[in-house]
């Protein structure tokens, strides 16, 4: 079965630009999580969605927004990009929000110049 798909895999943007990251969960998975991993750091939880509704919010900046669509894919929208936003952004999916096992995608590496 196909795993979690993230696109694009690499993205280069300039300061103050916007970026959109996409996540396609495993088939039938209804819960999506976004994590940010800065250089040499551990992944930090940003936000999660269950059944197209926001479930929990972590350390997500106000400049970022996200949503989950009817086909369960999710998009992370990032505006007014800053140098500090350069990171690896992971999406994970699970079946049901009470499930503990999350499957991670390969990540999108965002570089802000």
């Amino acid at each position, binding site marked *: 079965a196909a795993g*979690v798909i993230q696109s694009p895999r690499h993205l280069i943007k300039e300061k103050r630009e916007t970026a959109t990251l996409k996540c396609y969960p495993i088939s039938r998975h209804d*819960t999506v*999580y976004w994590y940010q991993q800065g250089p040499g750091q*551990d992944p930090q*939880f940003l936000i*999660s969605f269950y059944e197209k509704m926001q479930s929990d919010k972590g350390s997500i900046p106000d400049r970022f927004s996200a949503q989950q669509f009817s086909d369960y894919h999710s998009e992370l929208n990032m505006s007014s990009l800053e140098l500090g936003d350069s990171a690896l952004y992971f999406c994970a999916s699970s079946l049901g929000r009470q499930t*503990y096992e999350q499957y*991670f995608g*390969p*990540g999108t590496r965002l570089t802000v110049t």
Partner: protein
Amino acid sequence: AQSVTQLDSQVPVFEEAPVELRCNYSSSVSVYLFWYVQYPNQGLQLLLKYLSGSTLVKGINGFEAEFNKSQTSFHLRKPSVHISDTAEYFCAVSVGSGSARQLTFGSGTQLTVLP
């Protein structure tokens, strides 16, 4: 709030030697514990998990971990490592209550297997 501490940022070990990567957690409620591995420029892969039941859990690639509630630890072990085990290892905790089960990660341990 829960937190995870990985006591060693880097662990060098010779091939075929045993290894232990240490992880301690803090939480006032029931916890669910995980070990993930991250190879260079790749995503996170689940090695093993502890949800309940037997405190010794076995995972993929010959790894195992033991949940010790009294010491609040969940150390990862492998009796004989291979060069291909070189990677970053993250311990993570998920607290069981309410909403979706986001993970809190430790700072990671870089395991380097030397020939």
